[in-house]
Every structure is written in structure tokens, then in C-alpha cells.
């Protein structure tokens, strides 16, 4: 199952929310990282099942920063380029755990229905 995600405005908001969760989780486990690193990590975590447009990451990063969930500062990357490094903030950790709980609940409920259908079949 390959999910090819393009920049479609009608689904943008749902996508942005999911991506934000993935970004926070990544930063939480990886520590400080720059934009490319976050994108690669997300792809790796999904075992390359998720191929995202890296460009869509940046509005999400800005939104998280505006909300205070992450903080940024300029640094130097591995290949000696200037890059912005992001890290999660305490407020971001709280937001992350809240959203993870919500996501788990939603998954469980849907899972029950999916399981139900399977038995019938």
C-alpha cells in the first residue's frame, strides 16, 4: 500500500495534523534535528512506505514553532551548510502525549469495528 501524498488543499489539514504528530514524535526520540533529518527519519520509521514531499514539512514546522511545541536555532549541518535545528519543548512534550493518547483511542475504536467485520466474513 503506497500512499502518494500530494499537495491537495482539501486534505491539507488532516495531513498537517498527522505530520505534526510524526514530527513531534521524531524530535522527542531523536533529540535536536534539522529539517532534512526529520524527513529522512519519518521515511525510515515507516520503512519507506511513506514517501512524503519534503517541502510539506516546513509549514508544519512553522506551525509547531508558532504554537510553542518546538523551538529552533541556526547551526551548521554535517556538510558544513547553514541549517536550522529544531528541538521539542516541554509544552511540545505535553502536546505529544495528549495527541498520542487520542490517536491510540481512535485506533482502538476503529480496530474493534474492523475486527468485527473480519469475524463476519
Amino acid at each position: 500500500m503506497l500512499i502518494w501524498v500530494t499537495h491537495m488543499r482539501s486534505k491539507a489539514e488532516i495531513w498537517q495534523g498527522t505530520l505534526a504528530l510524526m514530527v513531534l514524535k521524531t524530535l522527542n526520540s531523536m533529540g535536536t534535528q534539522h529539517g532534512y533529518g526529520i524527513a529522512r527519519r519519518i521515511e525510515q520509521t515507516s520503512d519507506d512506505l511513506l514517501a512524503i514531499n519534503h517541502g510539506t514539512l516546513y509549514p508544519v514546522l512553522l506551525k509547531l514553532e508558532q504554537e510553542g511545541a518546538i523551538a529552533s536555532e541556526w547551526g551548521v549541518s554535517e556538510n558544513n551548510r547553514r541549517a536550522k535545528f529544531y528541538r521539542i519543548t516541554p509544552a511540545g512534550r505535553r502536546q505529544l502525549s495528549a495527541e498520542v493518547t487520542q490517536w491510540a483511542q481512535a485506533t482502538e475504536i476503529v480496530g474493534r469495528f474492523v475486527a468485527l467485520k473480519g469475524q463476519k466474513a
Partner: protein
Amino acid sequence: MRGSDGELAEELESHISLMAEESIGHGVPPEKAWREARLRFGSVDAATESYRDQRKLPLLETVLSDLRFASRGIRRNPGFATVAVLSLAIGIGANTAIFSLVHSVLLQPLAFSDPSRVYGARSLLPQSFGQNAIGVNPMQAREWAKHCPSLEQVALTRGRGAQIAAGGEPAAFRGADVPHNLFSLFGVSPLLGRAFLIEEEEEGHGRVVMLSESVWRSRFSADPSLVGQSILVDGENHVVVGIVPAWFRALGRDVYRPLVLRKDEIGRMNGNFNYSAYVRLRQAATPASAIAEMNVVLARHSGPAGTRMEVKAALIPMHELVTGRARSGLWMLAAAVGAVLLIVCVNLANLMLSRTASRGREAAIRSALGASRGRQMGQILTESLLLSFSGGFLGVVLAGWTLQFLAATSSFDIPRLEEVRLDNFVLGFAFVLTVVTGLLFGALPAWRFTRTQPQEALRAGSHTVTEGRGGLRLRSALISVEVGLSAALLIVAGLLTSSLTHLLDVDKGFSSDGVLTVDVGLAGGRYAEASSKERFFDRLLSAVSVLPGVSAAGAITQLPTLGESWNDPIYLEGAPSEKKHPVNNRYTSPGYFRAMSIPVLSGRVFGESDRGRSVAVLSEKAAKLLWPGEPNVVGRMFMGEDDKLKTLVGVVAEVRATLPSDAPATAYYPYWQRPPGGMSLVVRTTVDPRSVSGALRTALRGEDAQLPIPAIRTMSEVVVGSVAQRRFQRGLMLAFAICGLLVASLGIYGVVSYSVARRRNEIGIRMALGSSRSQLLGLLLRQGMAPVVFGLGVGVAVALLLGQGIRGLLFEVQPADPLTIAGVSAVLLVVGALACLVPARRAAGSDAIAALRLE
């Protein structure tokens, strides 16, 4: 802001380079690595756009880039921009100028202290013939001041012109005799010096005078040492005791002298209503309570015969006194000029709709690239606001010039004109109006611009975005609005023109053809004696009547159409008070009636043989008042001219004292019975009046070289001048209506051109299928004129409704005057048809094959 855009670009570049270098590290060739990296990253522009949208903050940057784009668009389309800016300049400028007038004249309170408590007092005589409120007499004012607790102050004034020789050519000025408390009643402090003292109102006291600031500046160069000096006023020395500040123009006078009342003038309760009175109410008092008290005082004082005359008091707020006659006219002009701006907006919206329709592809591409709808609408609004501000700036400049021009010409008789200026409040109004206008005419195109779906527009093969039928319907609806507003404006202008024509054509009671007139005022000093005045006029009249080209010469104390004056009663000897009829009184010379072609209905006019006798001539209405129903009254006696016994020698026809009102009852006395200080000479000429004016001037100088001679005018000029305000209103309305018509016709032309251009295919097919040229023209004309006819209908209906509001400005014309409505409809239909025909003919003339090939 720019920095973070640059920072983002840098961040994105480094992201991509990291991606590329990782691939290179895995052995991918660099070129391929970079290309794949960019592909995997996705559109940098889209990411930047979304990032910016999320950021939202740098409004300034967005606005600046919109401005740059808008100005480029405008430069590419100079024709449209010129039309837009010019029509906006006219619309916004006219609105600013009229608002300035309305604000200063009608809305601003008068400049003196607590103006809402100052009123003009008038007498109401229910049985007075053809008049409503007239002046007051001195006894009334004195009694009111003594016995009305609601009135804090009462001041009586009397108009009296003055001649001043100092400081330049001898000239006549409007003046007034005022009491010592007049200025304190209004709360006016003299600019220099002081107001009058109560002692100066006594007879025989030394002569003092106060001058207005404008006279002080124009004739005495604002010399501060003038106060305390003596100048010649009416030929006698007066000491200047004070200067009245320029902003106090409520009385409209330049020369003030103390009001000196003779004992006999004060004693007469029922005559001589020739004074004006002003009152200031106490804090707690209401006008109703004041009027009640004043009426009690009036009722207490009976006439000499012991019976009461039914005089009541009236209080007119000072503001209305000063501006009342201009009020409805100015509001009408404000509404008109608003309608013009609305027409301009609708027209520009229409024009912009057609422009943005052709940019539908651009809109679609922007949309596909990620531009939000708000952003795109913002861009269109920026364009409209840019046009609006350009037009608005130009308009304010135009308004400034117009106001300066109005202030310079005094021929329009607008009250408080000296207070009108483009102050900050008015400029603020202009700014708000500009913004609202820009948003108004940009909103519709902006909304429609962003409504097109990207897929439609990008479909291959279409050159323009089809608006669908909705687009054309919208634009036709806008045309209807324009035509409707235009119709309303034209109807009002037509009604005003009709009124003015009727007014000038009304039977005035005299003939002004070929009549010259000049005001002759005799200064005191040399003419202190009544006999010297009499001799002067005797000589002058005989000298003027023998001038070549002169068929008759006469004189009168106040010319017709310049207003009613000198209300004094006539009555039969021994008549009770209620039978004393106040009439207009005039002193004239015998030749006056012939010079003005006033018919003599019975008897004769007085002549040289009547010197030494006490005689008078009455107008028909006056004679009917004294002797109702009796046909032959010549030779009868009556009391007139300040309670003297008179013999009636003749009855003459009515003469209007003001053009719009019916003629008042008038009594005429020969001037030698009490020679006046000034009269207006009237001279009937057999040749062109202008050629006689030189000889007239010479004759005047011949009698007295030092006499100030104001302009010699024709009687027609005087009559037309008496309706100056109506002419002003009519002139402006006509100008606005024509502007509106021009703009509306441009709009019709534009819409029909556009619709025809869009339908070239259809036209080509119709022609190929055998439609004749005239059939095609007919079709296009019908479709083009449909919104015009609809708009005309709505406009006429609206004008009929609103016409009731301007009833007061009309004269002998109904608001629903069929002639005017028919005329306006004809004009609009013809203009509309022409505007449709021009593009329709072009289209119908096009080659069918060529039209089809174009697609």
C-alpha cells in the same frame, strides 16, 4: 520580513543539498542525485507559498508586492486607468466639496457661544395679507425684555446702510443700528476696542461706530490704531470704538452704530414692524415657555382704540435663520453627488469585471500554484484601491479649487460661505470615502475573479474563460443600476430647470426689458436737510429723463424682487386695531410706474401738481383691504405713512416683492413727502440699455461728483440675481446629471462591446445561417437596451418617490411633472440606443467567415 524569506530559502536549499549529497555518497552521479533530490523534495515554490500562508504575518510584504503588480497592470492599460482615475477624481472631488459645504453650513454649530439658545424673534399676524412672520417693533422688544423671565437677553436691531469715504473710493456698506448688549447676547468679543455703551444709545450722544474685520482689513489695512480715530460715516464724523471679528457674520453687516430710538418710535405698539430682534433663552427655559410669556405680554398691550390686535410671537432658531433657506437645497445636492459617485463605482466595477474576466487563466494558474482565494481577492482590491487613491487625491485637489472659486464669487448667495474650508474633518471624510469607493468597486470583480474553477480555465483550446450567462446578467444588472441613478438625477435637474424657467417667466407685475437701474445713496452731512435730499432727486430725475435714448425715468426706495420691506399699517380713520392692515410701503417718483410699465388700474399716479398735498397710490390688493368690494375708491382718504391722512389718487396693479411669492399689498407715496436717504433709479431706454449707462453715469457725477456710484445694472440682471441660489442649485444638479449620463452611457457602450465581442461565434453562425444585417442589429439592440429600459423604469419610480422631498425647492412644477419625465426618458433611450448601436454595427458588419475563423 525579507530576512525570514531569505532564511527559508537557505533552509530549503540546504535540505535539498543534504539529500543530494547523501545520494552522491551512495554512488549516484551528482547530476542525477541533485535532480532526484529536487523531485523528492517537491515544489520549492509551493512549500514557500504554504510557509508564507502559515506565517501570515508579513502583511506589509504582501501589500507591497500586490502594489507592484497592480501598478504594472495599470501601466500596461493606460486607457482604462485614465478613465478610472478621472471619473473617480470627479466623483470623490465633488462629494468632498459638497460635504464641505454641508458640514460647514448645515452641520457645524454657529460660532458664537451656546448657539442653541439664541433665537430670532418675529411677529405673527394671522390676518396679514400674504405674509407669515414679519419683524418686531421697539415697544414689543422693550416689554419682552422687562416681563419675560425666560429671556435672558433681548436685542433689537435695525438695518441701516452706511457710506464710508475713508480708505478708498466712497462705497456703500450694509450696516445695522444695534444696542449695547447685542454682542454680549451673541457672546462675541470685539477683536479690538469695545462694544457700545448704554449711554451711546441716547439721542444726542457723540457719534460712534464699530466696523467689521473685513472692512478693517480691506480699507484700513488692519491698522490697530484705527480704534479711537474718527472717520466719516455718511458724511459725519464717527469715532471707531471697536472691530467686530470676521467670524461673526450672523447679521451679515459691516458697519454697526448704536440704536437710537426716538420716543415716538418706542411708543407705537401696532406699527412699524421694521426691526429685527434676537433673544437668548435662559438655561432652564424652553422655546415654548418663552413664546408663551411673550404672547402674554403682547396680549396685555392693546392698540390706542382699546381693542386688541392679534399679534403672536414666533421664535426662529438662529441656525435656521442663517442657513434655513439653503438647507433643503444643500441636502439635495449631497444626495445627487452621492448618486454620481455610485454611478462611477458601478461603472468601474463593470469595467474591472471585463478586465478580470479576461484574466481568468491567470487566476486559475495562481490558484493551482497554491495562492489562497483571500490572497487573490486582495490583489484585485489592491488594484482598485490604488486607482481609488489616485482618483481621490486628484479629487481633493479639485475640491479645494472649487471651494476657493465659490468663495471668490459671491454671486451664489450661500450662507456661511466664509466658514467653508477643507479642514481635517473634511479631509478625513475624503479619505474614508476613497477607501470605501475602492473596496466597493473592487469587491464584485474580486469575488468573481476567484470563483472560476482552475480545471475549466486550463482546459486546452479556450482563449478566454467563459463567464457563463451569469456574468452577462450581472453586468446588465449593473447597467440597470447606472441608468436608474442617472434617470433620477436627470429628472431632478429637469424639475429644477423647469422651476427656474417658470420663476423667471412669472408675471412680475412690471416689465424689465430695456430698464437700467442704479442705487443712489446720499451720505449725511451735505444732505442732512430733507430739502437738500428732495432737491437732489428732483434735479437728478429731470436730468436723467431728458437723456437721449431714455423714454421714462423714475426712482423707488426698494426695487421689486429684492424682498418685502417697510411694513407699516394703512387703515381708515378711526378704525379699530384689527382693521389696521400692515402693507409694504415705498417712496417713489411719478415716473416710476411708467418706467417699469406698471399698469394704472384706476385714477392716476401722483405728479408735480400734487406737491403740497398729502397723496398716495395703492396697489389693488391694498385698496381692497381698505374698501372691500367698492369699485371706485379714487379720491377717498385713509391713514398711512406713519399715521398721516392721505388722499388716494390712483390704484395700480400688483408687483411681486419676491419672485416666488405672490405680490404683497403695497402703498406708494411721493418721495418729496419725506425724502429718503437713498433710492434706486430706474430708467427705461428705447435703445440698447448699455449705451445709455455711460450717459447715466455722467449725469450722476454731474449732480454730485462725490457720490459713490455702485454698478449700473439692467433690471433683468437684478431679477435673475434675486434667484441666485436657485440658479446655483440648478447649475450643479445639471452638471452632476450630465456627468452621470456620460458615465452611464460609457458603461452601456462597454457592456455591449464586451457582449458582442464574446458572441462573435454566435454572430458569425447567425449570419451564415441567413440572418440579415438589420435583423442582427435589431437583436443586439434589443438585448442591449433591455437593461436600459428596466433601469429607466426603476429610476423614474425612485425619482417620483423622492420628488416629494424636494417639493419645497420647486416652483409651479409638480414632482411628477410628465413633461420632465418624458423628456428624460427620451434622452436616456436615445443615448442608450446610440451607445448600443456603435459596437453592434461594428459586429453586424463583420465578415461571417472571419468571425468563425477567429476561434
